[in-house]
């Protein structure tokens, strides 16, 4: 008993470790987190998969053993006690019971037996040498059965758990007949020793199947690597479905599957959903996850060195990689996932500055309108890798996004996966295209146009009497200088210049001047760009002016974009993939049986009260004695009532 409690405590502590330390992560993550020494130490202790470590299983085995021994040891005595009526109780032992009283009444045997039986007691009679009769009665013997049920249940549940555990695999790994694969190999090249046949009785693993593709194996995690489990059938994913609620939360994940039996070649079609698995040949198939399955993409590549040129069309596949040649250089374009839905929580509008009244009002409402979940449309992520192997990661959104009443195309960039994306917002023209921006960008990047631009800007400044004739030349030079500096390095370059060359007290004023110049000149840049392209003049209104100011911000941000091309996603044909988990668990029903036994056992143990009553019928009186397994307060009451009852019955007779 003490040993068992000790084991239970160790089990509890081990379980806590398993919840605090994330289990079954890739090993490099642990090494990174703990450092080499602790990483190795923890690995030796099996802390990365506590619940399958040898010592954890050993504790479980000991518990099973100890509980079994307990049943074997206590069992016979319990059974005897359950069957027996203790009708051999002596006068002394009856008198010694805590609830025992000599009553001055006589009952005849038959009547006494009926009285006891009338209250659901079973009665056994024993005649004694002195002529008296002992009626030994009891009810609630099932209470003792509860002990058997609850403890046998523990053994049964543990056995069921062991049947589904990975014990055979562990043994295989120990003897060397099974070896987990740690490399990322195509399925066909995985060596035999990492493969498990269809005869394997118990497994749990998963596989990702793109739409239109099939799988006939799954992958099991095993320590640092994985094993390949052959299936007795082929699963083909016809179509994957996702549905959303109107607020953008997912409502349904479902896969239309075709199952082909490997032996007979028979096929059948099924749909599985979360919470609605399918069982084939004893293998349960679950909807576990989903993702992109490699979707054909159409993109427009804008060459950022010649942005005025029309973009070229590129085709690609999400999750695929392809070479890309830009301006004579070779790059590798590595596509990531295509995400068709991007649901974002655009926040609780103004939640911080609400008045108390407002909050009280909100607290009364159950509507779901304060969390603004919104689908912002498809996105594609990709990396562009140069000849030196350096890469930046990009995330481009396809749908225009509206902010403060204007429309933009949004693209994120980062040079390090650990960093958040920096977002670029390119303003869209009235055709919802980035072409106007690219035209402006091209003109800004083209020094050959600067003379024409600065002439226009200076003329306007003169006209508006913003500058005196004496300053004309100087102003014109400034325009040229600001434009070229900005085109080369954005706002950052201008700031850099101020920091390096201008005394601190003058910076503010000069910065203002530069900004003014830029804001004035950008109108002329656009005009020149439009004229060169043979397009009508850029309208002069607040909306179009804002476009130009937004463009300045984008041009500056393109510095950090640092790619030779801007890839605009123009279309895709979505191919989804479904993550299927498959299990074969022969121990499941054993565990359920054990669970049933456990519940029955607990109910019997706690809610069936074992009560024994003895009536010793003597010639001149009656002795009443009662015992119960526990709950003495209840027995006090029972005993009192029994005394009263017997007195009354005897009086009536």
């Amino acid at each position, binding site marked *: 008993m003490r040993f068992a409690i000790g084991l239970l405590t160790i089990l*509890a502590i081990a379980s806590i470790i398993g919840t605090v330390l994330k289990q079954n992560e890739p090993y490099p993550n642990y090494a990174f987190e703990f450092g080499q020494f602790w990483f190795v130490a923890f690995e030796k202790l099996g802390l990365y998969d506590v619940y399958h470590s040898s010592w954890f299983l050993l504790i479980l085995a000991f518990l099973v053993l100890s509980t079994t021994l307990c049943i074997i040891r206590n069992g016979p005595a319990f059974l005897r006690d359950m069957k027996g009526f203790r009708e051999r109780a002596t006068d002394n032992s009856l008198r010694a019971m805590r609830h025992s009283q000599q009553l001055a009444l006589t009952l005849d045997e038959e009547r006494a037996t009926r009285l006891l039986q009338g209250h659901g007691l079973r009665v056994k009679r024993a005649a004694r040498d002195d002529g008296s009769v002992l009626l030994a009665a009891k009810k609630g013997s099932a209470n003792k059965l509860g002990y058997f049920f609850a403890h046998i249940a523990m053994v049964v549940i543990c056995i069921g758990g062991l049947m589904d555990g990975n014990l055979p695999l562990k043994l295989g790994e120990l003897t060397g007949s099974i070896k987990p694969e740690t490399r990322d190999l195509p399925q066909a090249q995985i060596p035999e020793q990492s493969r498990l046949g269809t005869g394997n009785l118990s497994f749990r693993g998963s596989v990702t199947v793109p739409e239109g593709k099939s799988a006939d194996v799954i992958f099991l995690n095993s320590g640092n690597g994985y094993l390949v489990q052959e299936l007795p059938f082929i699963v083909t994913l016809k179509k994957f479905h996702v549905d959303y*609620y109107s607020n953008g*939360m997912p*409502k349904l994940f479902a896969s239309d599957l075709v199952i082909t039996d490997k032996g007979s070649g028979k096929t059948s079609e099924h749909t599985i959903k979360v919470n609605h698995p399918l069982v084939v040949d004893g293998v349960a198939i679950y909807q576990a996850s989903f993702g992109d399955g490699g979707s054909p993409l159409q993109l427009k590549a804008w060459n950022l060195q010649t942005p005025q040129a029309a973009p070229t069309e590129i085709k690609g596949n999400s999750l695929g990689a392809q070479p890309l040649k830009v301006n004579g250089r070779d790059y590798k374009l590595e596509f990531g996932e295509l995400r068709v839905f991007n649901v974002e929580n655009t926040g609780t509008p103004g939640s911080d500055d609400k008045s108390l009244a407002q909050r009280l009002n909100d607290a009364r*409402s159950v509507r779901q309108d304060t969390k603004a979940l919104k689908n912002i449309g498809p996105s594609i992520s990709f990396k562009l890798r140069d000849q030196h192997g350096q890469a930046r990661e990009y995330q481009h959104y396809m749908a225009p996004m509206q902010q403060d009443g204007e429309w933009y195309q949004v693209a994120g960039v980062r040079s390090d996966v650990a960093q958040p994306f920096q977002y670029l917002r390119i303003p869209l023209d009235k055709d919802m295209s980035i072409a106007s921006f690219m035209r402006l960008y091209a003109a800004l990047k083209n020094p050959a146009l600067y003379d024409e631009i600065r002439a226009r800007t200076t003329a306007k400044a003169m006209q508006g009497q913003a500058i005196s004739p004496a300053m004309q030349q100087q102003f014109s030079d400034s325009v040229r200088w600001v434009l070229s500096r900005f085109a080369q390095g954005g706002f950052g370059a201008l700031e850099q210049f101020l920091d390096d060359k201008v005394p601190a007290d003058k910076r503010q004023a000069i910065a203002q001047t530069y900004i003014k110049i830029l804001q004035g000149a950008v109108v002329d840049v656009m005009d020149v760009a439009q004229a060169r392209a043979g397009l009508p003049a850029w309208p002069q209104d607040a909306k179009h002016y804002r476009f130009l100011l937004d463009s300045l911000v984008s041009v500056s941000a393109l510095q950090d974009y640092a790619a030779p091309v801007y890839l605009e996603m123009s279309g895709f044909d979505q191919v989804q993939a479904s993550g299927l988990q498959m299990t074969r668990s022969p121990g499941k029903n054993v565990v359920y049986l054990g669970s049933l036994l456990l519940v029955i056992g607990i109910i019997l143990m706690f809610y069936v009260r074992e009560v024994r009553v003895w009536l010793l019928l003597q010639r001149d009186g009656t002795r009443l004695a009662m015992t119960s397994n526990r709950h003495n307060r209840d027995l006090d009451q029972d005993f009192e009532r029994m005394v009263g009852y017997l007195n009354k019955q005897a009086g009536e007779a």
Partner: protein
Amino acid sequence: MEMVLQQPLYKRLAAGDWLYALLIIVAAGYSFSLYGSAMDYYEQLILVGSSIGLVALGWFWPSWRWFFPLAGGVSLLAIQLYDHNLARAAESFGLKYLLSSQSSFMWMCTLFFLATVLYWAGTLSRAGLLMRMGSGLTWAAAVFALAGLFTRWYESYLIAPDVGRIPVSNLYEVFILFCLITALMYLYYEAKFAVRQVGAFVLLVISAAVGFILWYTFDRQAHEIQPLIPALQSWWMKIHVPANFVGYGAFAMSAMIGVAQLLIRRGILASRLPSAEVLDEVMYKAIAVGFLFFTIATILGAMWAADAWGGYWSWDPKETWALIVWLNYAAWLHMRLVKGWRGEPLAWWAVVGLLVTSFAFIGVNMFLSGLHSYGAL
């Protein structure tokens, strides 16, 4: 637990018992005639099962016979006032200030706080009247809680038919369930063992939960009804969660009774509280009930997991902590039943048990990530 001299159950039932059963059966039959066509096989099974459960509960505990119909009636009134239109929540006076689910919950919170104050005042001043008022307010709070849950259930369908769902599926809703169940269990024991003074202690845990509910509402807007993600769309949830909270409620109550017992054994408030032996027994009974329901809930959880996650046991943090809680109380019960422990050590242990239970209940959601995704803070 049957007394030895009691008649068998069927002989003990009086006209009132049968009348109550009839009421439940008629109500269930009426619901079926209205919605039977929309129910699937499981839902019909649940309707039958819950009717039997309600009848049994009413026979077992007479107070339930007025409590449940009253709470049901209140929510039916709210539904009447809604008249199929969620916007009425802000227009109808009765809904806005009393019966919409959120108003009900706010009343529940207020009444629980008041009840706590009255219980304490009554216990300290030995004023039976104040304590009886405390019980009365606790009952009233429980009516608002249950009626509010029913009303919320209806409101979820008004938001959109596909949003409709039972309100036991996020942290906000289960906290209300926790308050309701703990209060009801306490009221049962209060009547059975005449331990009204303990209310002062039990209501403290409930008040703490109420404090959380208020913070969660005002700071996080957690009360908004969100639809169910696919993993939670399962009828297992409907029984797994309430069973779990009977367990949590009972454990919380036993811990507070443990606190009262420890104080008495140190002579604090001893003259104002019931005897330590009585409390010891109530504490044991509460843990026994909690253990039974917690066991059932864990098993139901395993069966659900077998449907949803592909395995009845995945060592997910919530599961693992449920096991730890279970082992903890199994050990507690062994010490009492096998080793014959009583009194102080077990009282301390029950108090510590509440810490373990609270971690399994809230701590896991806050600090550990896993497959259980119903209520991150």
